Each structure stands twice: as structure tokens, then as C-alpha cells.
């Protein structure tokens, strides 16, 4: 089975659980293959957790879920040192972050202190604790969810934290037909539990390596940079896309090419990914109204910007 077929199989696998959302499934795989982290932002009950769960189940990987609450402490994520009487020494007890796929549920419910404990894990894939550095499992992916509708008692993620997510996705409500299928399914078991793993952790690492070999032609790189440059100069935005953002878009485009069975990137990839990869990395200028942090508005602005940039021919 080659890369394309495997990826297709995983998508079909997840699609058995998440009905009518092939695009979201595809993008979550892109995030996985691009060694990125995923931020799912949507109202409760549309399958955010289920998506993360099914993805983890499809891979033969360890999966941990952390429910973020206002009293969650960094040690609840990273782990604690406990005194071992027999050894007469402190012993590090790894927290739930030491898994391949970590679901950070309701990430904006916890305090910034706890949120930032994820920072190092997400960018360097390692944890420093008690002057010691512990590497995390590979592959490592954080899937965080947050609820945009409810702001009471939340701590919005800071820009630095947001920047570490490869993409921000919305799932959205399914169509009535798809919803009907969901209702008809037997509810005895969590649907994700039925899934069979298709890939080992090692396979995922191989796939991630293949992403690096995807060809991005020079003119496409220029196109990408033109988009990034445009966000930095636009009057609509008070903060443009960082270099990490450009890197993320490039990696995501390569991963998307692989997911779609190509060995090279197309301008289409960049154009399609730009809103979901870049929209959470920008700050909309205050002149654009009070709903500054609105997801839709940022996405729309990015879309408009992309439409203004000529595609290489």
C-alpha cells in the first residue's frame, strides 16, 4: 500500500464516524502529516472530540485526553515528581502530555499559566521539568478544542499560543441527511471505539518524512511569500503573519499535496490552506469593528487578500 492509498483509507475510516465532513477529516490528516497541531473551534456537540478520538483510534498510537478547567495546573499536564522511598529520590511521573495524540479539550477554560505549559511541548516536542528535559513521544500532535460561543470564565489563548497551532478548523453542523445517519447509528458504544487502527506510529513518522520530499516549485514559494507579505502590509490587519506562519503554510501545503496523491505542490494548495492556516495568526485592526477576534471575519479577510494576489502561471 502506498502513501496515497493509506491516507485515503484513514480518511474513509474516520468518515465512518464523522459523517459528511470529508474536508475537516482531510485537514486533520494534513495537520498530522505536517507535524502540526490542530485547533478545533466550534460550538459544543458537533464532533470536535469525536474527530480527535477517531483520528487517534485510526492510528495505532497512544491517546490521552485532558479536560481543561479553570483549576487545572501545569503539573496535571506535564507530570509530577514524587518522592520514591525505596530509591530515596524524587521520581518523575509523566503526565498525560506523554502520549502521541493529546486532546486538549476546552483549552480556553484553563488559566494562562496552564495553557503556556503546553508551549514547549507543542513547539519543541519536549518537556523541561526540574532542570531535566524529557522528549515527548513521536509522532506528537495536540488537538485542542475551544468553544467560541461561550466566553464566561474563559481565558482566550494568547497570540504566542495560537501561533503554535498549524491550523484552526471549524467543523460546522452536518447536513440534515448526514445528521440522520448519525441518529440512526447505534448509540451503545462510542462510535470511535469501533474503528480499527490502520497505521502504526512508525508509519506515521514515515509519512511525515515523505512530506519533506514534496516539491514546492520556486514560483509557488514566491506566491506563498506574496500572501504572507500582503498580510503584513494590509490596512485591515494590525498584525500580519509571522515567519512561523509562513513555514506552517508551506508545510501544510506539502502535506496536503501528499494527502491528495501528488508529489508536488500547486498554487491551489496554498490558496485553499491560507484561510485555515493563517487566520488565527493575525490580528484584525480595530477599525474593522468590535468582533475583532471573530473567526469568520479573519478568514474572510485572508480570503480577500488571497484573491488579490496573482497566481503564478
Amino acid at each position, binding site marked *: 500500500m502506498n502513501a496515497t492509498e493509506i491516507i485515503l483509507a484513514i480518511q474513509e475510516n474516520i468518515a465512518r464516524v464523522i459523517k459528511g465532513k470529508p474536508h475537516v477529516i482531510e485537514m486533520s490528516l494534513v495537520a498530522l502529516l505536517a507535524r502540526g497541531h490542530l485547533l478545533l473551534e466550534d460550538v459544543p456537540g458537533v464532533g470536535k472530540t469525536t474527530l480527535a478520538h477517531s483520528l487517534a483510534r485510526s492510528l495505532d498510537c497512544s491517546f490521552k485526553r485532558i479536560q481543561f478547567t479553570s483549576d487545572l495546573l501545569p503539573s496535571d499536564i506535564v507530570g509530577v515528581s514524587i518522592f520514591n522511598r525505596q530509591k530515596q529520590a524524587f521520581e518523575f511521573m509523566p503526565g498525560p502530555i506523554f502520549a502521541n495524540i493529546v486532546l486538549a479539550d476546552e483549552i480556553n477554560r484553563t488559566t494562562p499559566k496552564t495553557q503556556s505549559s503546553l508551549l514547549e511541548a507543542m513547539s519543541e516536542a519536549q518537556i523541561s521539568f526540574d532542570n531535566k528535559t524529557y522528549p515527548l513521544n513521536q509522532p506528537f500532535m495536540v488537538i485542542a478544542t475551544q468553544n467560541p460561543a461561550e466566553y464566561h470564565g474563559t481565558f482566550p489563548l494568547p497570540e504566542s499560543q495560537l501561533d503554535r497551532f498549524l491550523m484552526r478548523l471549524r467543523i460546522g453542523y452536518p447536513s440534515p441527511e448526514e445528521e440522520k445517519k448519525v441518529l440512526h447509528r447505534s448509540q451503545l458504544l462510542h462510535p470511535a471505539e469501533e474503528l480499527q487502527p490502520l497505521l502504526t506510529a512508525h508509519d506515521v513518522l514515515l509519512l511525515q518524512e515523505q512530506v519533506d520530499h514534496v*516539491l514546492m516549485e520556486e514560483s*509557488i514559494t514566491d506566491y506563498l511569500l506574496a500572501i504572507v507579505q500582503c498580510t503584513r502590509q494590509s490596512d485591515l490587519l494590525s498584525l500580519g503573519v509571522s515567519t512561523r506562519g509562513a513555514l506552517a503554510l508551506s508545510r501544510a501545503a506539502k502535506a496536503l499535496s501528499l494527502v491528495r496523491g501528488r508529489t508536488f505542490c*500547486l498554487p491551489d494548495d496554498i490558496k485553499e490552506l491560507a484561510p485555515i492556516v493563517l487566520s488565527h495568526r493575525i490580528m484584525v485592526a480595530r477599525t474593522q469593528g468590535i468582533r475583532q477576534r471573530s473567526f469568520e471575519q479573519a478568514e474572510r479577510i485572508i480570503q480577500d487578500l488571497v484573491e488579490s494576489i496573482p497566481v503564478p*502561471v
Partner: protein
Amino acid sequence: MPFDQALRFASIWLASTSFIGLALGAGLPEWLAALTGAALIVAFLRNRGHKSVERLARFSPISPAGWNLLVIVGFLGFWVDMLWVSGELLPAGIHFLMILMIIKLFNLKLRRDYLHLYAISLVAILASGSLTTDLWYLPIFLLYLLAGVWTLLLFQLTKHPEETQVLTMSGTVRSQASASVHLVTPQFFWLANGLAFATFGLTLAIFFTVPRVSAGFYQKGVGENMRTSGFSETVNLGEIGPIKRDPSVVMRVELADGSPNKADGLYLRGVAFDQYDGKAWTNRLGYRRSVNEDGTGAFVLLGNRSAAPARLGETIRQNILLEPLDTPVLFAAPFIERVSGKFPSVQSDLTGSAYLPFPSSSRIEYSVLSRSNPVLPADLSSEPSLYPESFTRHFLQIPVQSERIAILAKEVTHTQRATFDKVHAIQSFLAHNFHYSLDAPLAELNHPLEEFLFSRKTGYCEHYATAMVMMLRTVGIPARLVTGFLATEWNEYGNYYLVRQQDAHAWVEVYLPHSGWITMDPTPPSLESVGSNSPAWHALGRMMDTVRLQWSRFFVQYSAADQLAVVRELKAGGTSARNKALDSMGTLFNPFMAMVGGIKEYVFNGTISSLAEVLGLALIGLAFFLWLGIKRPWAKAMAGKKTTRDQQPIVQLYGRMIGHLARKGISKPASSPPLEFVRLTQERWRDAGSAVGSITELYCRARFGQISPTRAELSLAEGHLRYLMALHKP
């Protein structure tokens, strides 16, 4: 046209130009020229894919070993040829070269065969270049250069099948043998031609400015001098007639003081004769002495100082370019006073003619100051007088059998008393009572002059002039016959007289006691003309002659001295242009003027000699080229355009598709990437969707994936495009 086919065409073209060059320059034997030509045509037709030729070639009875044997036979033939047949290395080598070319043309299979063909062509064009200095070599060489650039480019761009391998993602090596299609695009076409002409221009610049050390090894050998007649010690009457139909160019005469009086023509005096024996003229005064040089490089002929005390004679300064003739005579308008040219020495005889020590084997250029003798008033009324015996022996000599002529002369002149009037009477008698024709077979007769005067009354310049001299002498007036050329053909493009063999002429010089020798011509203007009659043709011919002359002057005989002259001229022009620019700048930036002037003085009035400047320029040029080669400033620009080669055809095809769709009302927005555009097209024109989709897919693979489409894929895409073009949009 695919690159492979274009390469084959260009190779045959290359071989053809070098063959034509050799055929024109070396005078190949007819059978060899015909054979080579046939081989070239067959090779060309095979490349065009003519079936019958291909079949013929397949039935070729000669095996590879047979071809090798042929080469050996050809080599043996070369030795035989060199030792016994042509007896020289160069012609034998050229014949062998042609045989090699024929054999190669029938065996063009591998790439190294092509390389061999190029080497043979190179040697052939070099050989033809060393054998000729004619103008036709220029177009042939230009064609060769063009073909050379094409073949080199194409040879580099077409690759071995094993050279085209593509590293795929999985790390394995995938062969793309014959998969990629290279087409000769218009851009490529113009690039190649532009390169060729740029090369030519650069070479020309180098030719004119970069100093050369010495001439090449293959200097043109001693050519055959043009035969002419009428300028030797003895000239039979009627000898000039035959060459009066020969249009080959003998010399070109520039007048230093502007354009001439065209109606008269210009008499170019060669040799004078004093003795006539009834059939032939002899120059008894032909003893030649060396002429002294006056220190400025000019040779002064003292004997020609005018006899007239008041030097009223009209001076004519001429620059003469004389083709190699079989006579050492230096032609010029009468009478030569000074000759200057690149001669070691000049001789003159007692009749005032100038000679080289021996005939020149190459074209020579010299300038002459001549002064004609005017008829002084004292001579207009003087009567025939007595002359010393040493003078009468030469210029009043009469052959024995000329009583009839004496009677005729007396008849013509008895009404006149003055010498000058008698001369005029005889001249007009001859001019009006006789008939000019080149068809007079008088030379074979025993008494050609009597025949001319009394029975046929038809002849040409020699007969007229001889008759006049004899008649003058019988009435006691000293006279002599002069041969030379009468230049009448003025080339308005080059501003010179073009003198041909057919302009050979004979006329009379009459001695008047006070004035000296006076030029008289009894021959009426000829009504016959030789060659084509259309004035347009004449003008074209004159123009061509000018071009030929410039070619010879500026290229064939271009020397280091000329180079220095060009550089000096450039420098002078450059300095004046600089001065002008500085002047105009000075009015604008007065404060800077002093400083700029100081620098200018320092730079241009320094001790740098022009040669050093040339060398410096050459070094700077060399450094520039080295810099270009090392830094490769274009490499950066090229890096982003990797598509220019393999992907070109499909990218162009995609462009045509986009253009076609735009004409159909579906134009591609600038911000729309390829796949998005396919969806857009499918929405708006369902039938076109699949064709557009498949072309776009190929395009994306080639353009962004760097995977060249195969020939089959490309033709499929072309089919899709044709389908799209034919499709009717609802």
C-alpha cells in the same frame, strides 16, 4: 520541429555550406562535386522521411566494414592524388575531405558521426577560406556560422537517452528515455539566430580593433595575372581589338579633386611607341632608368616637366587601384609628374611612361600627380619647323611603303598653313570619313594601314591612331602612338572610374615646338557597347563593384596599419564626442568643469600610446568576459525559469488553451490557481471540462512538479486542445 530532427537538418545544412564554400573556392572536380551534392540531397531527403529514399538506403549494398574499406581506399587515393594527380597537398587533401564527407553523410547514425561531420565541415570551410579572397565567401561563411550555432545549440540540448534520468520521490532512478519532447519554439529560433549574428558582430569588432601579430599560415598563393596586350615593347597593329570585348576590371581610378568631367572620359596613358614598320609598333625609347625618390615617398619623373615656360597645365591627382596585370606599366593620366605608392622603386623611359621593375602579382594601389600640356598660343600659328636628327629619327620615322599615305596627308592638309591646324585637319578627316568597328580583320593583312585608309575604311582605335601618326609624320609633324585606357565608366556609388579591359585604347601624341607633347584622339566615339544594355543593370553592376572593392579593401587587405588607423579614428571621434558632451555639461555644471577638465587632461593627454590603449581595452574586455563566466549574473534570473526546456511545450499548450477559453468568454482571473480554474470552467462550460482538466493536469505536473510529459501525453493534450477548439460553446 522537434530538436532531434532540427539537429539533423542543421547538420546537413552545415555540411552543405562548407561544401558550397569549397566548391566555389577550390574548384572541385565535377564528378566529386556532383557526388557530394547528391550525397547531401540524399541525406536531406532521408531526414525529411522520404520513403523511397529510405528504401533505397536500406538496399545499400555496403556493409559497415565496406564503408571502412572505402575510407582506406580514399586515403590511398589521397596519396596517389598528392604525389601524381594534382601533385599538391592542399587540393589532394580537399578531395579526400569531400570523400570523407560523402562517407559520413551515408553513415549518420550515432552522435559521434555528427561530431565527425562537424569536424569535416570545419576543415572544409577553413580550407575554402584560405583559398579565396572573394566576396562570395562572406555570405557562405555567414550561413556556415548560422548553421554552426544551430548545431552546437541543438547538439547540447538533445541528450543521450541515458542522460535523461529523473530522480523520483522514492529515491529510485527512473529513466525518461525519449519521453521528453523538445520543440524548436519561436523564442529558440530567434535566440539561435541572434546568437549567430552576435557572434559575427563580435568577431567583426575583434577583427577591426584587436591587434594581430602576423598573417595566417595559408596565405593566398600567387594568383594568375590578367593578360592584357598593347603595353609591351612591340605591338602588332590590331592587337588591342580582341581585348576590346573583355569586360574584366583592370583598375579603378579615384580623382582626388572631386568628380570628373564625365563627357570626356579620362585618358590613362600606358606606353608610347615611336617606330612603325608597316605592321607593328615598337618603342625604341623604351630604355628604363630608375627614378629618384624625393624623400617623401614620391617618385618624381623629371623628364615629364612641361616644356611650356608658364606652367599652365591642368593638374590631376589620381589614386589608382591596379589589378595584377602581366605588364609592369603604371597607368596614369598624361603626363606623370609624381608617383607614390608602396614600391621599392619606379622606373621611367624616355617617352615619359612609368614602370615597376616587374609586374606585380597582387593588386597595387598608388597615387599619381599628372599635369597635361596645354597648347600655347605661340603654337597656334607656327609652321612646321626643323628638328634635330636625334628627334626626327624617332618621331618622324616613316615605313618605306607609304607614298599613298603621304599624298593623302598632303591632300588633307594643303589648305592649312599652321601646324596646329594641320593636326586638326587630319584628326577631323579621320574622325569623319571612317567607320568604327571592332570586326575589322586587318591584323592579318600585309598592309593593314593602307587597307584601312583606302579600301575598307573601317577599323578601330589603333588604326585611327596609326593612320593619324603616319599622316602627321609625312607632313613633317612629330607624333607618336600611345596605348592605354580611356576611362568612361564613372561609379557614382564609390566615386571612382571603373576601367575594364574593353576600355583599352590607342591615341596620338603630337609634338608642338613650344607646348611639347599634346594628346590628340582621332577615334570617333564608339557606338558599340559590350555587355547588357539596361541602365539599371549597369547601376547594379557598379554598386556591386563598389561592394567588392570595399570588401577587398577592408577585409582582404586589412592590415595592422589599417587597424591602427581605425583605432586612431575612433579615438579622435571619441575625444571630440567627449569634448562636445563636456562642453554642454560645462554650461550646466560650471563649478565641476575645472575638475573634470583636469581629469580629462590627465587621462587623455597622458603618455599612453594608442597600442597600449587597445591592449588595455582588450584586457578589460577579457576581464569582463571572465567576470561574466564566473559570476554568471544571468544564473539568478534563469533559476526561477526552470520550465524553459522540458516543460515548454505543455506550458505553451496551456497558454493557448487559456487564450482560447478567454475568447470563449471564460477568462482566467489572475488570482485563480489552475485547479480552481478547472472547476470554474466546468461550471460554466460542462463539455469542455474534461479536456481542460486533463490539459491542466499535465500542465501542473510539468510546471510545478517538474515532470516532463511524454510524447504520447503531449500529443494527447494536443488532441484535447483541438477538440476544445472545435467544440461549440452553447
